[in-house]
């Protein structure tokens, strides 16, 4: 059984058995949770369903958050995808999906925390995009979420997936690493390449602070989900091209924990510094909650 304290252990097990990481994780979770593989697959499939529904709900141009600060931007990005933009229709639609789910979260819609509500757009923007665009089967997409989940468990246990503890790198950074590992698997990469992709994704989010305006999961969280998707694709493409991370994934997770511990409390979800403390950030806070006594 896995203890989910090492990405290396999970890779070795999958390599030794000549199977995908997702299959090794599904076997392991089946044993640990004492449920059949079919039951666990169905549970994960239901989560993918909710991700897809959240994409549709979030693409509504009329959608607004409870605070009134955000909403409707995913529809703008989606509209631009028609022209292909600079980076191609696929990339724009993927970013729009991430934004849609994140905006739906801010509007009190239903989402899957993956790993958190603040970072809930990144897996739908990546895995659900490959599925929606016919680049993988539904079964493969559901399975890849087990791979994503395994990387998330290691990060949660060795570092943190809470913005209040580790900053945004712990939320969007973790989601990004999870997504990169899943994307590699979906495109036929090896377990080792999944680990490299996760490492490269984490490296590119290291140090990202959690500084939400008015303490709400909106500004800048929604746009960081969009950026998280692009980083996940970049990391996965590098790994699939045979590029290795010079720093192993497990050591990147250790570094993330150290960086998170070094962040001042003002940059860990308390809305006391960073973007939250800018003049505009403060003005928006007053707009939503009134003047502070």
């Amino acid at each position, binding site marked *: 059984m896995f203890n*989910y304290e090492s990405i290396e252990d999970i890779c070795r097990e999958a390599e030794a058995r000549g199977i995908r990481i997702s299959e090794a*994780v599904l076997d392991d*979770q089946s044993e*640990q*949770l004492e449920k059949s593989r079919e039951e*666990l697959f169905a*549970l*994960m499939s*239901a*989560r993918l369903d*909710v991700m897809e529904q959240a994409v549709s709900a979030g693409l509504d141009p009329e959608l607004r*958050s*409870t*605070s009134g600060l955000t909403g409707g931007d995913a529809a703008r990005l989606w509209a631009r995808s028609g022209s292909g933009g600079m980076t191609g229709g696929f990339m724009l639609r993927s970013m729009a999906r991430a934004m849609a789910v994140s905006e*739906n*979260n*801010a*509007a*009190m*819609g*239903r*989402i*899957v*925390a*993956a*790993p*958190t*509500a*603040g970072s*809930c757009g990144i*897996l739908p923007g990546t895995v659900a995009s490959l599925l929606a665009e016919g680049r993988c089967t539904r079964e493969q997409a559901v399975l890849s*979420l*087990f791979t*994503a*989940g*395994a990387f*998330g*468990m290691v990060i*949660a*246990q060795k570092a943190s*997936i*809470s913005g*209040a503890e580790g900053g945004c790198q712990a939320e969007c950074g973790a989601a990004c690493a*999870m997504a990169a590992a899943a994307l590699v698997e979906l495109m036929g990469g090896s377990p080792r390449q999944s680990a490299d992709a996760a490492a490269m994704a984490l490296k590119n989010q290291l140090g990202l602070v959690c500084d939400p305006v*008015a*303490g*709400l*999961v*909106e500004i800048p969280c929604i746009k960081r989900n969009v950026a998280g998707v692009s980083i996940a694709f970049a990391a996965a493409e590098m790994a699939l091209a045979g590029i290795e991370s010079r720093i192993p994934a497990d050591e990147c997770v250790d570094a993330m924990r150290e960086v998170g511990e070094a962040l001042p409390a003002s940059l860990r979800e308390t809305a006391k510094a960073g973007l939250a403390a800018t003049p505009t950030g403060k003005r928006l806070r007053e707009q*939503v*909650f009134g003047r*502070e006594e």
Partner: protein
Amino acid sequence: MNVFDIIGPIMIGPSSSHTAGAVRLGRVASKLLGERPVKAEIELTGSFAQTYRGHGTDKALVAGIMGFDSDDERIRSSLELAREKGIAVSFSETTIPGAHPNTARITLTGAGGRRAVVRGASVGGGSILITAVNGMGVSFTGQYNTILVLHQDKPGAIAVVTHFMAHSGVNIGNFRLSRERRGGEALMTIEIDGGVPEELMDRLRALPEVQQAILIPAL
């Protein structure tokens, strides 16, 4: 931890502490009342009082009072639904010294005239801690079936209650006793592994030492 803690839970946004946790606080109050609520007075402290509107905490609390789950899309429109159901809802700010910043006190009045008062905090990640029930200090999370027993503080009271539990094959996971003063009213908070047979609650209520026994089913 398992894979569904990471890819999950399925929830209503925007944040687990402001929505899922708040729904749970409302649900505990609803379960404690045990009948259809007609009035909900909600007092908020600290951060909850400052930010409840922008986070939708008000909607989440009311959704919980109506018995909704934390992944129910009706949470978004719970204030309108409460009005349609004839539940009078009010919000006010209060100060509770030493309370967790995300603390709410919910006073419910039922259609049959019953009252229930629950004070609790959303402590992060959707978890809650109930700190007072009907004015008595308690400490439980709502994750387990929880039995509250109000009784006279006198020798043997705990033994009698736990004897009945043992007899019903119920295993106690956590036990806490609080009392106002020696020989006065005391409260047992008992968290149970697994289910609670209905006849056990009736038996507990029939005990001469017991003034009141309440079951709060696991959320």
